[in-house]
């Protein structure tokens, strides 16, 4: 097999693994700083300029700590679930255009929107398994809450994602993000807002923070993890947030495409991509700060009685818009 340096560069460094890793760390820092400022305190300040290396320092610290595996657990699942979850999230990111093209060039295919959303569900399932395999009542309760929540909210997530597919007349993410001269967020604002709310529940952030409720169930599914595996579990959650934000950007905010000045489309597309991802991250963080945590039954009521009917209505409305706006969409 010949060494394709460009391929290796794209996969490993940019816009592949290293870029995704740094973007995750950067988004985590932005989240923490924004949350701190909203709560009138300082946030990370001392590690690196303005504390920008803090998430990385936390990751490295956890890698160095002792990793205890309780003797009762089902070992294989317990040991590998965090890393599997993390890798599936990163793998899903490979199918989303970052600098105008996917990480592996021309790897998009018809229907990869469904594929990416299915990968998100599988990775969430591994998070559930990581809690279920640690035989601890707190983890068990946390894991069942994760399962109940993400299985329920996957339905409106799919339906809202399909609204963009309807508008773009295609199920491939690269086509959807490329066919948005006007971002879909402006064309179907109801779908955009509701998708953000559904995303909030998928990412398990306030007000849908139930699986992580520290004050009730210690640390939920993370309770028995320590050291390296905890580092990867936390990293998996951070990548999940970035992945959610990227999906929003691709489906509703016209992906990495934006005005290009003075040539170098790859640079400008990456810049727009990062700015849009940060914008979505800030919106989700704002929603996190402003609300309290709801109970699991209230979360489920919101899903089954509000979001699913609304998603079907939104689909109907979007189809109407799509037929009316057919000339506008490329």
């Amino acid at each position, binding site marked *: 097999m010949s060494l394709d340096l460009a391929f290796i560069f794209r996969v490993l460094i940019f816009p592949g693994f290293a870029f995704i890793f740094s973007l995750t760390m950067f988004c985590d820092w932005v989240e923490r700083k*924004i949350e*701190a*400022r*909203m*709560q*009138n*305190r*300082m946030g990370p300040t001392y590690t690196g300029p303005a504390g920008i290396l803090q998430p990385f320092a936390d990751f490295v610290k956890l890698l160095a700590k002792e990793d205890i595996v309780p003797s009762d657990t089902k070992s294989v699942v317990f040991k590998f679930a965090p890393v599997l979850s993390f890798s599936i999230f990163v793998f899903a990111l490979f199918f989303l255009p970052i600098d105008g093209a996917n990480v592996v060039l021309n790897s998009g295919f018809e229907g990869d929107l469904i594929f990416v959303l299915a990968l998100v569900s599988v990775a969430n399932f591994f998070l559930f398994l990581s809690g279920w395999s640690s035989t601890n009542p707190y983890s068990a309760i946390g894991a069942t809450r994760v399962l109940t929540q993400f299985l329920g909210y996957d339905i409106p997530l799919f339906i809202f994602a399909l609204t963009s597919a309807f508008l773009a007349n295609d199920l491939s993410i690269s086509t959807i993000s490329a066919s948005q001269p006007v971002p879909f967020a402006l064309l179907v604002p109801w779908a955009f807002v509701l998708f953000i709310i559904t995303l909030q529940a998928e990412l398990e952030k306030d007000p849908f923070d139930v699986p992580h409720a520290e004050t009730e169930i210690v640390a939920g599914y993370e309770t028995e993890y320590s050291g390296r595996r905890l580092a990867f579990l936390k990293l998996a959650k951070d990548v999940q947030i970035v992945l959610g934000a990227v999906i929003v950007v691709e489906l509703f905010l016209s992906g990495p495409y934006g005005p290009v000045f003075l040539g170098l489309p790859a640079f400008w597309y990456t810049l727009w991509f990062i700015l849009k991802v940060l914008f979505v991250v800030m919106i989700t963080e*704002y929603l996190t*700060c*402003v*609300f309290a945590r709801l109970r699991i039954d209230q979360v489920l*009521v*919101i899903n089954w*009685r*509000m979001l699913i009917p609304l998603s079907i209505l939104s689909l109907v409305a979007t189809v109407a818009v799509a037929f009316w706006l057919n000339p506008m969409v490329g």
Partner: protein
Amino acid sequence: MAKKIKLSPMLKEVLCQIFRKPATRKYPEVKPKVPDDFRGRQIFDIDLCIGCGLCARDCPAEAIEMVDVEEKKKPLFHLDLCIFCYQCAESCPRNAIKTSKFFELASTNKYDLVIKPQTKSKKEMRRKNDSGTGRSGIGCFGFFGSLP
């Protein structure tokens, strides 16, 4: 679920907070201002002391020990036991114990946390070395002085 959801006032408040200065005081670069009669470390004036021992008797934490200084009994304050209630200052009939604003008492040397009754010459030297941190000159006098 069908009732009208009122908008929480937190929505606006949180957005406004982003543009305000954080409420955190950057200690230790910025020191807090304490009032004049703050109950910090005690200042003991050995010239006023008559050795009655009321401070040691009344101390709720048993943090004052009467020791021999030049054939008289004078109090030694163990600041690691002290609860800074200043009952000693109240009980003292001669007002020999006074408050100070000094509160940064943490130290890695336990002999810093002792106020020894010292006669005048040693006191002058201590005042020169006392730079406002826990590791003042009293530390070395305390160390040498309290070796058995």
